[in-house]
């Protein structure tokens, strides 16, 4: 029972085939992996190897063509769109390369967005605002709450996106090249932020091209041609984030 609870992700031979039957494009060719609660993992691999495809399936944005995906012990491989939406709403937080903030909403409103879709949310509007404000404080944007995305730098926008990913208290945070659009300095800030979240016990899976970035994590999955080519620990144990990643900035209060 306890062991079951600590295993957040288990995939069994998941594959994904795009295209037609005549010309199938095999993006994933049977990937089996297990992720424990509190891990901070980087998925690496050359372009077109299937990283995003894998992450999208883990994020319940997509379904595997074959194989099983167990999220917190629950087999979600054959869930319908409504069930997947509910899982995304309650269990998952997603960070995109291109931030994907809604341009007509303020930073605060963007952070509040996932709460709207959280079914039977008991929080009142005021409580939600307070919670979102708190989340923005946690990413160091307490002075930017009423700013619109186009009034924020790329790094600030991505921090809003991080706050948004956290707002429904997910069991897993997934990020597809979260620093892909950022300069070195902003990238480091975002990674430090993720590092702090990891320290506080969050489970994080991120996709990246850059070895630099992978160094912030504890475990690196290398994907090649839709297959898991290697699974290597970053010289550290993977037991729930009591250790600091290599580069840690000054801690922020969350």
């Amino acid at each position: 029972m306890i062991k079951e609870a600590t295993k957040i992700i288990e995939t069994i031979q998941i594959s994904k085939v795009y295209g037609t039957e005549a010309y199938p494009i095999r993006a994933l060719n049977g990937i089996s992996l297990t992720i424990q609660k509190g891990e901070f993992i980087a998925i690496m691999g050359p372009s077109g190897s299937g990283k995003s495809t894998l992450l999208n399936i883990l994020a319940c944005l997509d379904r595997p063509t074959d194989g099983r995906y167990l999220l917190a012990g629950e087999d979600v491989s054959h869930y319908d769109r409504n069930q997947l939406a509910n899982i995304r709403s309650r269990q998952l937080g997603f960070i995109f390369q291109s931030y994907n903030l809604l341009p007509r909403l303020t930073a605060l409103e963007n952070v509040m967005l996932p709460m709207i879709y959280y079914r039977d949310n008991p929080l009142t509007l005021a409580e939600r605002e307070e919670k979102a404000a708190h989340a923005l404080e946690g990413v160091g944007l307490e002075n930017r709450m009423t700013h619109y995305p186009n009034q924020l730098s790329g790094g600030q926008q991505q921090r809003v996106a991080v706050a948004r990913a956290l707002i429904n208290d997910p069991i897993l945070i997934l990020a597809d090249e979260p620093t892909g659009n950022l300069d070195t300095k902003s990238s480091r800030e975002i990674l430090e932020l993720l590092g702090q979240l990891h320290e506080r016990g969050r489970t994080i899976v991120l996709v990246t091209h850059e070895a630099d970035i992978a160094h912030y994590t504890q475990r690196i999955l290398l994907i090649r041609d839709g297959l898991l080519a290697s699974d290597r620990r970053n010289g550290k144990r993977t037991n729930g984030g009591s250790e600091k990643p290599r580069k840690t900035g000054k801690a922020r209060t969350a």
Partner: protein
Amino acid sequence: MNFREMVRISWKSLLSNKMRSLLTMLGVIIGVAAVIVMISISAGTEATISESISGLGTNLVFIMGNISRAGPGAGFQGMQGGLVYDDMTAIGDRINGVAGVTVEQQTSVTVKAGNTTLESITILGATPDYPTVRDVSVSKGRFYNEQELDRASKVVVLGSGVAEELFGEDDPIGQSIYASNVKLTVIGVLAEKGLVSGTDFDQQIYTPITVVFKKFTPSMFARMTGDRVRQIIVSVDPDADMDKVIEQITLLLANRHEVSLDALDFTMLTQSDIIETQESTTSSFRVLLAWVAGVSLIVGGIGIMNIMLVSVTERTREIGLRQAVGATPGDIQTQFLTEAMMLSLMGGLIGVIVGVLGGILFGALSDMRTVIEAYSIILSFTSAALIGIAFGYLPARRAAQLDPIESLRHE
């Protein structure tokens, strides 16, 4: 997600693109306004018509001769058919429950008095019952009497307009006028009545029908047709039984014309018959207007659908993002449906205001009368709402069916 949140989201997204929202609503605004204005015009027309029908007189029965209809074996007499002057006298004398009976025979004359000449004035020959039957009153002097009718006295009563044009401020009573060179003495002036069913009572002059027969219709024709009249108008006593009076008149005339009851050479029409005919024409007019208005509402709905479809494409990324953070297809569908509804409701509201003002303005600025009907407001507003749902459905469904990943990749 609850209803209030849905409305809040939709409201925000409509506000965020005011120009597009306004353009989208335009079709509905025009449609709703068109419905209200058109119904107000048709209601105004109906009111005018029904007033003019009741303005014809009170409790009237119109009897018209079917000159062309010949009964089988009726010979020359039958071919003549129709009504004669004496039919009227007989109805007045022999039927109970008749308040008044008159005939009308008219022709066009040139009227002269002093230096003033008026072309194409209708001279209307009738009987002393005419004011009762036609519901007109005499404002100055008097109407002609039975004696003058019998003797074909050359007296005339002027319509108020004619009196004004011929004599201005002067008193016309006792003066002479020439109607196509026949000298007539003015004995009275009618009170203003205006235009009723296309007849301007104020622009006519009135003489005993015997004068018209003698002086203004060719004597040859009169001799041949035997003082034939086009129609006899009977005013039925309000207390009398209309059906009984009609039955008696039918029997009397059939008897006088020597025709059988199933081959009558005349037709009777009551005022309520006329009202019914008018109602059926105005109601088909109304149906036509309803169609026009309905089509414009549907065009408005198609406008909403088009812009919502464009909006769905434009906002594909937003839809993907909302799904990624937990929106179900149903949430997305509800959002777009709510937006379409709000657009059509707001469009409907503005359309009601525009339509009511437009109807009032149209009535004030044109010579058509308009009556704003409450039902037109309710009807058009609810149709706008329904159209919002109907035409918002397709775009909303399309939005809901979008795949989150593909949407997020959309540029």
